């Protein structure tokens, strides 16, 4: 049977996926069952959660406008969908940059493929299909329950559901194609001239700073006591509704499908699909001209001797772990050096911390309002929630892949006279040390500015510290339980089953912890308000310290569970692992 090169590339990829799945099935039926049940549970939870929230928004809007044909709920939901699709578009473009760079220029089998008699654009398209599937399956998994509940909440006609299936592929292909063009151009421009890389990183950081500065204004919590603030919310969300944004074509198309307007839905689908097709064609043409020279440049740049910069920073990091006993110290130094010398890693790390810092500093401009009563509790909860969400993203992205990134070099650690549990605990310690300081400091500053009571301040900082431990334990434990030693790309490692499970369980932990903290803050604020208005006799008999203590105990229990169970499972898996 004769296959075209493109069909052969896809066939090989399908076979690799099938073998990987079969290997998982052979390895442990229990693991397959646990993951399947967890995935199903998460899907159902998302569906129910989205159904509840969207139902509330719809009902609230209908009441406020007295049952007018276009409710406030409809307006809010349209803007929410626009914002959601825009964020999704940016995230897809960002993740595709990483995945496409890794699969075109870093994958080991590319050495075999570039010397085969295959046209570069065909080779690119084979890899492009793989990248699109890889980067979009998680959003399909997480987005499908939300969109289904959307359809139910808006009482969409049957047309809405097949429209979802038609819109989604076109929507995920477009950012991937744009990302591919960017990767091909940047690699061709940067790889042969390393000095340009520093300039590019500098320009990138300045651009990111400018973007974050703009976001800082947008991220300010709205002053809901002011009637004009609702207009501000609409204006802020309205930025995502520019008609030239592809995310807006998706939004308008889906809204039209939800209304049963076939003509408008078809128009927006055609707009999206033809744009995706054009972008893919342009990406393939760019690959035809630049893939092979770019591959050669990257390979050449790897082989060329490099000046090793950052000796003073590495020296400081060495000193920072200098007190640790061997072999932990050497393992830490190795991981820190590896991280420091990979700009793709540390630039993303800085970006995460930048977002966290800008958000907290920006949000504090509304602290005057948030100090009062229940709003203060919600304000603190919002700060804490934002910090924890970014922390979870950080641990999912950087700590989860630590074990997998040992890769084919795991034999070095496997051979050394150290227990495999030691390897997992060293990664855990690295995760805690790397992610703990800034969130704790920012939480302390934030709590001080919000003038939290001492018990609330301690609870806030305790929650962050506990979350650092829990999310690091979860990430390292699951990273050791689901290692992918055959993949050198962190972006691909975290996109897998284990990475997704880690992120979702992290979200569950944050939800439970945050609900506890907000409940405590609300309770104590309500008690204060009741006492001030009606006298001490009407306030609850619960001692605030006792309440805080109970919450801290519950959070401690959750944290111990989140560290112990995944770490134990991960270590056991590492100990049984054969190389």
């Amino acid at each position, binding site marked *: 049977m004769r296959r075209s090169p493109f069909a052969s590339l896809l066939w090989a990829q399908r076979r690799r996926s099938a073998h990987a799945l079969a290997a998982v099935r052979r390895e442990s039926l229990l693991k397959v069952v646990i993951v399947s049940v967890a995935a199903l549970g998460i899907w159902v939870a998302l569906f129910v959660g989205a159904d509840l929230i969207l139902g509330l928004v719809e009902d609230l809007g209908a009441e406020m406008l007295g049952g007018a044909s276009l409710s406030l709920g409809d307006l809010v939901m349209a803007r929410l969908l626009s914002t959601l699709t825009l964020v999704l578009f940016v995230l897809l473009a960002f993740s595709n940059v990483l995945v496409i760079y890794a699969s075109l220029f870093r994958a080991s089998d590319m050495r075999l493929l570039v010397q085969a008699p295959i046209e570069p654009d065909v080779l690119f398209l084979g890899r492009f299909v793989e990248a699109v599937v890889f980067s979009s399956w998680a959003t399909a998994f997480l987005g499908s329950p939300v969109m289904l509940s959307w359809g139910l909440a808006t009482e969409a006609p049957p047309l809405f559901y097949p429209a979802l299936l038609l819109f989604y592929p076109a929507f995920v292909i477009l950012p991937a194609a744009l990302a591919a063009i960017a990767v091909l151009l940047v690699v061709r421009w940067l790889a042969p001239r390393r000095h340009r890389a520093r300039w590019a990183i500098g320009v990138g950081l300045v651009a990111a700073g400018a973007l974050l500065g703009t976001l800082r204004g947008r991220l300010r919590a709205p002053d809901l006591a002011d009637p004009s603030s609702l207009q501000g919310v609409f204006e802020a969300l309205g930025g995502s509704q520019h008609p030239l944004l592809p995310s807006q074509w998706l939004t308008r198309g889906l809204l039209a499908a939800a209304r049963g307007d076939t003509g408008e839905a078809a128009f927006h689908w055609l707009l999206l699909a033809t744009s995706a097709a054009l972008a893919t064609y342009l990406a393939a043409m760019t690959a035809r001209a630049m893939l092979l020279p770019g591959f050669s440049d990257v390979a050449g740049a790897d082989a060329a001797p*490099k000046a090793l910069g950052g000796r003073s920073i590495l020296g400081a990091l060495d000193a920072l772990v200098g007190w640790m006993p061997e072999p932990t110290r050497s393992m830490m*130094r190795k991981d820190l050096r590896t991280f420091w010398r990979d700009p793709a890693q540390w630039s993303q790390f800085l970006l995460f911390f930048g977002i966290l810092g800008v958000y907290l500093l920006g949000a504090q401009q509304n602290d005057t309002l948030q100090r009062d009563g229940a709003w203060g509790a919600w304000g603190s909860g919002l700060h804490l929630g934002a910090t924890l969400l970014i922390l979870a993203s950080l641990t999912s992205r950087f700590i989860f892949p630590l074990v997998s990134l040992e890769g084919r070099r795991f*034999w070095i650690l496997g051979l050394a006279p150290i227990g495999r549990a030691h390897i997992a605990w060293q990664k855990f310690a690295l995760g805690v040390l790397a992610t703990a300081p800034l969130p704790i400091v920012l939480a302390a500053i934030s709590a001080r500015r919000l003038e939290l009571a001492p018990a609330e301040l301690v609870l806030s900082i305790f929650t962050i510290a506990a979350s650092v431990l829990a999310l690091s334990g979860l990430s390292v434990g699951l990273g050791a339980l689901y290692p992918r030693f055959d993949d050198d790309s962190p972006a691909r490692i975290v996109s897998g089953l284990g990475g997704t499970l880690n992120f979702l369980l992290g979200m569950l932990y944050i939800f439970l912890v945050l609900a506890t903290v907000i409940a405590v803050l609300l309770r104590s604020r309500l008690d204060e308000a009741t006492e001030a208005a009606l006298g001490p006799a009407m306030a609850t008999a619960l001692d605030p310290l006792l309440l805080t203590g109970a919450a801290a105990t519950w959070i401690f229990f959750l944290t111990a569970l989140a560290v112990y169970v995944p770490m134990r499972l991960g270590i056991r898996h590492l100990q049984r692992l054969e190389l």
Partner: protein
Amino acid sequence: MTAVRTAEGRNATKTTPRAMIETVELTKRYGDKLALDRLDLRIDRGELFCFLGPNGAGKTTTIRMLTGLARPTSGTARVGGFDLVTDTIEAKRLLGYVPDTPHLYDKLTGREFLRFVAGLYRLDEGRFEALSTELLEAFEIAAVADRLVEGYSHGMRQKLSFAACFLHEPQVVVVDEPWVGLDPKNIRAVKRDLRRRVDAGLTVLMSTHTLQIAEELADRVGILHRGRLLHTGSVAEIKALAARQGSLEDVFLELTHDALHDPEVGA
């Protein structure tokens, strides 16, 4: 088959024989596939033992179990008297390993990689400095020691693997097809170095397809076929097993004839 023999010739003058590598009924299964079948093997201190066998014979499986990278299905494997399953850490302290494909940390320099390995084996700073300088010179990679490993050729990586292997002064070294990527000059240098260390008391288990090197270096050879150890002995003894006199290659091909023509066994 039990293969307990003392080394002959120059080995006779060495230190008191002591089993540094010993396997008893060592067996490994991968699902239904029997990769290694009840291997009994003893390699004494100061002996260079060479494993020969066609692809898929079980050489790498044996090496993985002897280095603690895989666990036996049944039977025992000991290094320096320490069981690799129950006394893993003690056994590993005595072990050095050079793999066939040197996957190293690309973002470390050669010197940093050696320092990392020294840390894993808890070498003190003074000893590390002396030994790393000596090894970098011996394996002719001192000039590139401060460059990132990602820029190294395959041969340079292999030499760095050798340097890392000898850094903690192991008593037992397992070497899996180490000649790939080395140029003739380096092959000769590595052979001389191995021989010198073996004469000083090091125990080496080497797996190779380069029969000429096995013939030249090995005190004893073992022929592994379909997971079973067929024969062990000195090169002369193995040659004597063949119907016709010839090189070790001729004898190897004769002894493993059916394996090379069996489609189930890799080429």
